[in-house]
């Protein structure tokens, strides 16, 4: 028992800082692309974050735009992911009414639909002691009936489409849909393979779009907190 307590003290508490400049990301991290000085003097760069898998090569030949260390890039509409001039309009909070319905908690149901498992791994990481979404009242629940909304990952494979639609229908109204990762937004690297729907179908209205391949847990948490009007 003493050993347990000693180890507990040595492991300390380590929640991640969610303030604007709290994230200490390494130099090579590929966060939200921003316009370089080259661009400011010339035409404005256009880039679609919803299609990006943030591969190093994607921007290697562009002098007008480069990856930054900024992890924040969740938005409220598909159009907002198409960055014009290197600027982005980050996600807005839900309506006053919706936030009142939710109170201080947000219960989500995860649906993986034709993914590689990477985005789910980062969603799982939100529950560890560093990102600890529980401290903000956010939790993944076991049934759509218990949920305020769903988090969709993956390019929506033909074999998962029906299950996704049924899960969405099973969530009581009013409900939220969050599309996580390049696959759920645009099909990602699987776009056009013929056996995926290239992302969440239009029959399911999305409230929050979180780009990335996979998005960093801080990107996810930032998006969720913006949706709840906490940032």
């Amino acid at each position, binding site marked *: 028992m003493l*050993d*347990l307590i000693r*180890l*507990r003290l*040595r*492991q300390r508490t*380590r929640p991640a800082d969610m303030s604007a400049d709290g994230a200490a*990301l*390494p130099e*090579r*991290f*590929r966060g939200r692309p921003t316009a370089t000085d080259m661009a400011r003097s010339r035409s404005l760069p256009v880039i679609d974050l919803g299609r990006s*898998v*943030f*591969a*190093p*090569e994607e921007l290697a030949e562009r002098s007008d735009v480069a*990856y930054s260390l900024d992890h924040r890039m969740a938005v409220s509409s598909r159009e907002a992911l198409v960055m014009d001039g290197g600027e982005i309009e980050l996600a807005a909070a839900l309506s006053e009414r919706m936030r009142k319905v939710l109170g201080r908690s947000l219960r989500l*149901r*995860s*649906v*993986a*639909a*034709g*993914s*590689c*498992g*990477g*985005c*789910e*791994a*980062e*969603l*799982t*990481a939100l*529950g*560890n*002691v*560093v990102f600890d979404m529980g401290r903000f009242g956010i939790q*993944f629940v*076991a049934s*759509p009936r218990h949920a305020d909304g769903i988090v969709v990952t*993956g*390019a929506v*494979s*033909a*074999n*998962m489409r029906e*299950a996704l639609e049924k*899960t969405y229908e099973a969530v009581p109204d009013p409900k939220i849909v969050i599309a996580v990762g390049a696959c759920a937004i645009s099909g*990602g*690297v*699987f776009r056009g*393979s*013929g*056996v*995926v729907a290239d992302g969440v179908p239009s029959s399911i209205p999305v409230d929050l779009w979180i780009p990335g*391949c*996979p998005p*960093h847990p801080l990107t996810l948490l930032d998006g969720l907190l913006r949706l709840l009007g906490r940032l």
Partner: protein
Amino acid sequence: MSRDGFLPLANRRCVALRDVPEMRASDLGVELSSAVRDGWRIVSLFGTPESASLLRLIAVLARDDAGELVAATAIVPQEYPAIAAACHQALRFEREIAEQCGAAPTGAPPLVPVRRHAPDHAPSGWLPTVPDRDAFDVDVVSGEEVHEVAVGPVHAGVIEPGHFRFQAHGEEVLALEIVLGYQHRGVERLLERCERHTATLVAESIAGDTVIGHASAACGAIEALARSRKTPRAQAIRGIALELERLANHIGDLGAMSGDVAFQPAAAYLGRLRGECLNLLMTISGNRYGRGLIRPGGVGFDIPQDLAAEVVQRIERLRDELAPAIRLLFEASSVQSRFEGVGVVTGEQCRANGYVGIVARSCDVARDVRHDFAYGAYRFAQIPVASAWAGDVLARALVRRLEIQRSIEFLLEQVPALPRGAPRVECGPLQPSELVVALEEGWRGEIAHVVLTDAGGNVRRHKVVDPSFHNWPALAGAMPGNQISDFPLCNKSFNLSYAGHDL
């Protein structure tokens, strides 16, 4: 020594396709069956269209203790005598061939879907032969007190989709059937059709927790076909990344298994330490899973001296923080009693069905590509094969514990002593009409990428075998006799990939 009738191969060495000996399909079945009896196992068995009405089957076998790898081929019409009729280990491969290529093997157990999709590698004009997209392979158990529990594809946790059917008597599981295919994204077709850079990105997305493993195997095959020779530095960096990936997943798995038996302290500490490994990969590659690092011809990011010093320091800290957390898990009697004797896989089952990786090593079947088919950095820095014998959840946890220690030792030896050389070299056009097998010991087990080129030097077939393809039946086989409530723990101790299986 090799096997009569087969062509000897080596890991990542190309052979001309015309040199691969051709057999009749009926002989291939008999040959595979006798090879399995002699201690060989099927690495891969797949089909690719040969002409408008013929299919070429290619079989790759391995004998791990002797480090031998061989191949043979057969050219068959749509209906041919089933290989699985003679060789049970070929059954799932043959079902996959029927589904992917529209073949109709006769005389075998009934065809059931593997992933539920239309044929995408069929000779033109062949119609699908796998009859019912919804057919299940349930061993139906009947009786008054028998009940069925169906779970998924949408599960209770944040995990990938799969459908599980338990036939149970009270709490005791009598049979478990696992239905997969929900994650099917058409990976092999994309690898074959896309240009090389896009194909590399697809290879990184075969299984999101095995980015390094799959990308290295895919690039290894392409580099062999292009006769591109990586520098020792690039090989060392790939080895480092692969071991970091193994660390992250093994530590995460031990934490998750701890969580599944409600032992919270170890779950919390190990969950965070998994993140430290991912953060190390991010420091090197800019992505927590190492995306962007493995590229044809080498690696996309170098590890300069000051970065290497930082990495070493962080691994030493990780080692020091990890040891007491892992000890805590293994010394708790409440954990021991939940881990012991649950979900047993025996050595005989393993040898008969060709299981790989942690599952094989935990029932005393020492199979490790890094040792048996050493490649890259592993030719110079050997990692001892970790094994346990009981084949239960505890054994799979023990193997992970040993591998964590050995990966850390490997990293502390390799990172400070990186050889000289360019991180990345040219990787040009592919040689025509060749075949190559690239094996990689991913953290789950053996990853096999088999690539064939056509007469024009284009990729004709890119076959991917994730260790999960071999090992899913092991989970189904380990459950009968256990309680349903032990399934989450048992499942986590295998931690198989849905995406890697479904492709």
